[in-house]
Every structure is written in structure tokens, then in C-alpha cells.
């Protein structure tokens, strides 16, 4: 986990998509949102959860690990940047490698795009746009101490397991204090393959 990072608390999320809209306003990818908002229990509950880039640390982010062009660079403070436009070849390796389904490819431009923790803002001491506007604090930016000061008794996790693979992330997830599971089981049930809803 980085020093200052985003903490995601799905329990607080109201699915309003303020983060999605705010992400569009970011000057580094204006008009395109890099946030995914998922409904985790459709039809049974309005539960929702925002996914920002998790800025994996294990030992280097999977997307950066598989990039054949070395386009995805990681800064000293652990932020996994979006692909360097001079290097990216739009091959989608990173899209397939990311266990959280974060990067997006602009097929026309043959470029990858993803959340870079609002580097244009955090470099100047501002919080990322999504965590700044989030009405409920489902996205919180700060240190774990600041989070705990504000929300007594909060528990966070930064390790996720996908099948056999454990991934440590720079962005952390708030987990239910009474049912701390470590590492957190990653991924959602498969609902769609090649655009087809496979639940039917």
C-alpha cells in the first residue's frame, strides 16, 4: 500500500457515478472516464462498487509486466502510469493481464488508457478527482491513519487472490471489520463472455 492512496469502501457506495463523471473532467483524458462502476448483486440489491486502477505492486504491476513495449511505467511513489503514448502499440496485453479489468484500449488511436491516480492533481497536493467528489467517501484519498481517524475501527486489505495468484495493490479496499478475510478473494462471478450474458 502506498502512503497516500485511494481506499475503496463498497459499503458506502450509492452507485451515483459522480466518480465516473468526475473522471471525465480530468485533463489528462478529458471526456473519457477510467472508472468502472459495477453492480455486484443485480436484481437483489442496489449494491454497487467503483473500480479505479489498483496500482499493483507485486513485484511490478501485471499490466506493466506483460507490456511488450515497456510503455507502462511506474513512478517512485508506486503510481502505475497510463501507457506512454510514444511507446504504446495498442496490443491489449495489459487489458488481458489486469485481474481487475481496469485498462481500456482506444481502438482507433491504438492506445491504452487507464487511471493514473490523477497524477496531474496529486503531484500538486490535490486529491484525485474521483475521491475528491465522491459524496459518500466510498472513494477516500489519504493515508491509512487519516482513514482510521475519520472512521474508527475501519479495516482495510491490500492483497487479493485470483485462483492461485496473489496480487498486492497500492490501492486498498475497506473490508467488513467483523469478517476480515485475508487475502481478499478477487474477481466477480463471470456474467458475460464476448458480450453474451452467460447467466441465462
Amino acid at each position: 500500500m502506498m502512503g497516500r492512496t485511494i481506499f475503496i469502501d463498497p459499503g458506502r457506495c450509492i452507485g451515483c457515478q459522480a466518480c465516473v463523471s468526475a473522471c471525465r473532467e480530468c485533463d489528462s483524458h478529458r471526456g473519457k472516464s477510467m472508472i468502472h462502476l459495477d453492480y455486484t448483486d443485480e436484481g437483489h440489491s442496489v449494491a454497487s462498487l467503483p473500480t479505479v486502477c489498483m496500482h499493483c505492486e507485486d513485484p511490478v504491476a501485471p499490466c506493466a509486466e506483460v507490456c511488450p513495449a515497456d510503455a507502462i511505467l511506474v513512478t517512485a511513489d508506486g503510481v502505475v502510469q497510463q501507457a506512454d503514448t510514444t511507446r504504446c502499440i495498442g496490443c491489449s496485453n495489459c487489458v488481458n493481464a489486469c485481474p481487475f479489468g481496469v485498462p481500456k484500449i482506444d481502438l482507433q488511436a491504438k492506445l491504452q488508457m487507464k487511471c493514473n491516480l490523477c497524477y496531474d492533481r496529486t503531484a500538486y497536493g490535490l486529491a484525485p478527482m474521483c475521491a475528491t467528489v465522491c459524496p459518500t467517501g466510498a472513494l477516500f484519498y489519504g493515508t491509512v491513519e487519516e482513514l482510521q481517524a475519520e472512521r474508527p475501527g475501519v479495516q482495510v486489505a491490500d492483497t487479493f487472490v485470483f485462483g492461485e495468484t496473489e496480487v498486492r495493490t497500492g490501492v486498498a479496499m475497506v473490508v467488513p471489520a467483523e469478517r476480515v478475510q485475508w487475502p481478499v478473494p478477487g474477481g466477480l462471478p463471470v456474467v458475460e463472455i464476448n458480450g453474451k450474458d452467460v447467466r441465462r
Partner: protein
Amino acid sequence: MTADPRAAADRRTFIPLDPSLAPPGTRAFRDAGGIPADQWHADQNGETLVPTHCCFCGVQCGMYLRVDRGGKVFGVEPRNHDINRMRLCPKGINAYQQVNHPDRLTAPLMRRSRDEEFREVSWEEALDFTVSEIKRIQQTHGNDAFGLLGGASLFSEKTYLVGKFARVALKTRHVDYNGRLCMVSAAGANKLAFGIDRAGNPFSDILLTDCLLIAGSNVGECFPVMTQYVWGARDRGASLIVIDPRETAIARTADIHVALKPGTDSAFFTSVLHVVIEEGLTDENYLAAHATGWEEVKAKAAEYPPSRAAAICGIPAEQIVQVARTFARAPRAMAWHARGIEHHSQGVENCLTVINLCTATGHIGKPGAGYGTITGQGNGQGGREHGQKSDLLPGGRSIMNEEHRRQICEIWGIEESELPAAGTSMMEMVWQMQRREIRGLIGICNNPFVSLPNYQVVKEGYDTTEFHAQFDFFLSETAANAHVVFPVTTWAEDEGVMANAEARVVKHNKAQDPPPGVRTDTWAMCELARRLGAGDKFDFPDSRSVFDELRVASAGTVNDYYGITYERLEETGGIAWPCPTTDHPGTPRLFEDGKTYHPDGKIHLQVVEWHPPMDPYDDEHPMSLTTGRTVAHFLSGNQTRRLGALVEQTPRPWAEVHPSHGFRNGEPVRVVTRRGSEVFPALVTEAIRPDTVFIPYHWPVPTAANALTIDALDPRSKIPEYKVCACRIEHAERIDEVPAPPVAPGHVAYPETQVSRTDPLPPTAPQGRGTSERS
């Protein structure tokens, strides 16, 4: 993040682009201290940040509008204002896109009859035609044959002008506003019980409470930024009770969610009071000292044991007991409600039962304990304080009160005999149009074709008028039916004040000049008044001059704005009225001294008897239809249905139904009421009662929830019963298409507003909450 809810309001801080300007360890702009500046601070890119507030709901979040070197608004930046502390919702984030939108009206549109097409004309011609029509109608049929309908998204200065314009220039008694559809039930109840019409506590009190009761309010979608206060309270261990037929985002994690049948709220709250009395949890000392009518209320509550109320409300009786104990035993408890309990033919009574409960448990007028109502529109609170409502004069004065009439006539410089009597409410005015009692109308900042119930009646009423003019910045569905449309400014092109849900008056600042051809509503109203021969009473070059008169007009009343000045608002970030003197800090929390605004200083408790909704259930119509809002859109959608991001988020309405009816997600479902039937995609979810259907109402026909709703009114507040009518659902063949928003001639509809009509619903249905059968 500052944990202190009483953090000081920002003082025009700006983003330090040079990191050396930010204090060490700064995590965010909110802590950056900033530099107070006399002018808006322009950064090195030539970008300017103008501090203002959102134009949408009653929370009135602070925001900065980003203005480029050419003086055009092009973006938004979060602002550390006391109300929202940097938070914004998707509507607020995208609001700036209205300002330079290609659909903006930039020239008056005019036609002499509804058979013709609109043509763009000069302001001169449009004003002259309007004035000649006003004179023709009033000379033939009397002054009251011409009506004026205002809006609660207007700045308070403009709402003051609407009331004054109607009574002094038009000399008609028919003036009302769309806040009539918003929270007049709460207003009526507050007046009856407390003698003052506003929420009792500020939002920051929510952070101090031990038990928060939210009734009939989908806070997560309609007032998203308020949820930070709800969560702040819960972080401290407060319990949350939500009363709503749907399991909304805020109800999902509540300690108690009471999913009662629409239209049964007063039975529920009276029964909760019954349990509180039975278990000896009332605060008898408080009641004896501060309330009247308690014995009668107590006797009525005895008639509503939980077993009876549970049958009426369709909930387990244990929940009533649970709510009563949780609320009454909490050291500090608060109740907030919104349209869910107000949009009823017994809206005032519903609110009164909540007040009765708060008073009986002594939860009034203390930090973290009290009663509040959440205004829907940005200026829902201020919009009715300054004479826009048919029965009110500025300062919340009554138009029926001799003394009040005299005071206002003195300020306006007219004879008391010239001041018209009370008018009728918005829906009643539409009925009068149908009956040709009102033959001409000017609408300012409203869109009744989408927002009033029983669309057929509304359309007929408007079609019957001989002359109809609208003020708007987009061609709304209502404006598309008018003879004259005046292109006026958006909120970012003028300055003025609004009062938010806490009755905190905040100032909006001008971020850019209006496009050529666009004038302010103030200018247009004064110009019309001048041509009607009342120019000397309407010498207002700008908002500030109107505000100065408004301050004087409200001085000494309950709604006292006299101590509020533009300079003070800019300095403090907002002042809650009453504020009688320029050194008065304002009144964020009411009744702290235990006194209400009635002459006896007591809370007047009222006896309430529950009765069924006005639209009876039968075998043909066994279910309840309820309507409401969705997070991406605002009221009639005129402002939000043209913004790409919001259209993408929620492109079309849906009908939320329970899985027990056998519909699959996205399937066409026909919703039938006694007023009509329409087909929507089904959103199948367990988060709604099996006997209830929910449709969001932001779209026009043929996808309008309000083509199905009933135009029954509350006898006291005249609010329509949007929240419950009888309906049935059937399988259908084809989903009704969402029409593109109207545009002026020669304009091409903004491509992003063209929702694909043929695509199947995206895999995640409207809010991504629907289901298909699970294996």
C-alpha cells in the same frame, strides 16, 4: 479530510499550482489554506476559477466554474465549501455543460398561432407582441385572466420580481410557482406547528445525532452529497432508519428499513407515536413546557396500535415497535423527510405526524436533535419566501392579512386597493386554463408538460390558452408549445442568492457573459413591466438592486433577510435566515431557546387521521404506482436530458417491478392507470415491494410517468399526489421511445442527446440493478 464538521468555509481559495505554495503535508486543496484575493485568482494558464454553487438540488454544493481566457465556462473544480466540502454528484459535475451548449436559445422565438412554425425575432418584437397580447386579454376578460408561473430554480431576487411583477405590473392574482410541486406540504406543516417555514437544523447537526430517521427520501440519488453527513453520523455509531417502499442505496445499509406501502405514512408515524406513548418514552416535561394539543394527539394515537398500522402499511408490526424504541431511546435523534411523504393528498398531515413524533420525544431544537425537510429544487426554500406563491407576499407575509398587505404596498408604492387577492395553485391554474378562466400565461423557469401530473389535462389547459410565453434557456417541452419564447440566462451568467435546505442563503456568482441575444430574466421582466406602464416600480439594473429591495421587504418578518448582504455572503459562505441585522450571525438552528414563532412560543401539535389515497384500488388497478427521481437527471429533465454524460448514464425511464410478476429484465411492461398507459422496459428487482411499481418522471410523453399520475391535490398545500396512484402492469410488445429534446428552428439536436431507439437495453439495465433469472 477535515473531520471537524464545523470547518470554516473557504474564502475564495485557489488551487496553488506551485507546490511550494501548499503547506507541507497537504493532501488536498481543501487544506491548502489558499490566498484570499480581491479578484478571482487567475492561474498561470489564464484559467479563472469562479466560486459559485450548483444550480440543481436543495443541498446547494459549492463549486468553482473554470473559465478560460476567452471568458467562457469550460469546466468544474471541486470547492471546499462548508456545505459539501469538495463533494459533488454527477449532476453538479456536468452542470457547467449547459452554459455553452449548442441547444442554447439565443434569439426570441415567436409565432402568432400554434399552427405556425417558430421564427427567430428581435427582443423588441417579442416584447411588443407579448405586451399587446397581455393588454388585449386583460382588457377583454379582466386582469385575472392572465397568469404567471414562476420557478424555484430562480435566484431569490428573481422570485421576488415574479411576485412583484404579477401583482404590480400584471395586476393579476394568478401567480404561483413550481415549488408547489416540491415541498409546500412541509411548508404548510411547519407553519402550522412551528409558525416558521424552514428546516429546524443544519446538515452539520446530522453528524452529532445518535439516530437518524429518513422518511420518503432517496437521499443517495436525489441529494447524493447529503449522504456524507449520513455516513459521518454512522461512523460515530448513529443508527439509521429509512422509510421507503424501495430499498434505495441509502436504505440498503440502514439499521431498519421500513418498506411501507405508498400513501400510508401518517398511519405509520402515528402508530410509532402510539408505541412511544405505550412504553413511556415520551418527554413529558418537554411537552408540558413547549407544546399545545398533546392530549388530543395522544388520544388519536391510541387508535393506531401497531397491529392496525401494520395492516394498513403492509409491514410487520415489530418494525413499528423497533422504530419507536430506536428513535425515542436515542439521546439525540433527528428526522429528515422529502417528497416521499409530501407528494400526497395528505402530504401536510404526513409531515405533521413526523413533527408530532419529534416533539413527543423532545427531539427538537438541540444539536443533533431536530426536524428537517430536504428541499428538492436549488431554491425550493427561498423560492417561496419572497412572494412567488399565490398566497404569500415578500418576507413570508400572508396576502390575506391586512397589516401585511399594508406593509408591502408601502414598500412597493402602490395603494392597498390595487394589490390583488390570493390566487390559486399551479395545478388549479391549469384547470382554470381548461375552463378558459385564465386565457394568457407567462411561464418562467418551469416545464409543466413533464412535471405536472395527468399530462392530458395539462396539455389541454395550455392548448386552450390564447397566449402563452415561456422564459427558458433550452426549448423545453412546454416552451415548444408557446407563442413566444424568451432566451434567458443560465445560473452561471448572472449573480444572485438561493436558500438551501438548511435555509442557508448562499450566493451564486457570474462566471461568464451571456451569449449574444440572451438577456437576464430580471431585465426581461423589468422591460415587460416598463411596457405595461409600471416602469417606475421596476427600476432594477441588476440582481443587487433587487436584493436590496428584497432585504427591506423582508425586514422584521419571520423570514428576515435584512442582515444578509452580498459582501457578507461572499465572506462567510452562507448565512441562515432569520438574520435581522448586518452583525447578526444568522440562525442555523431554530428553537434553541425552546420558543417557536407562534405568538405563544409553543409547538402546535395537530391531530391527524389517516385516509386512503385519492385513487382507489380495484380489481383492474390493484397495484400502487409511485414516481421519483434518478441520480443523473433533475426534475423535468430540461437541463439534464441534453448533457451527454447524464444521458449516457440514464438514457431512458424504466418501470421497476418485483420478480414475482414474471417479467424478465428489459422486457416491455405496460403500466396502466385510469389516466392512460405507457410501455417501459422492466427493471426487475427485489428492491421494491411486490405491490408497487416505480417510474422515474424526468421524461416527456410517450415515456412520461406524469401521463399516468393523478392530479389529486392536498386540500391544504395543493401539492399533487405524485407518489401514489392505482395501476396494473401487463406484458407488451414494444417499448415506447424516448423523444429527443426539442430544439429551436435551424438548430440540429445535439447528437449526444439522440438516444438510440433500437438498441436493446444495455446488459446493465437503467441503473444496473435489474436481474434475470439466476442459476
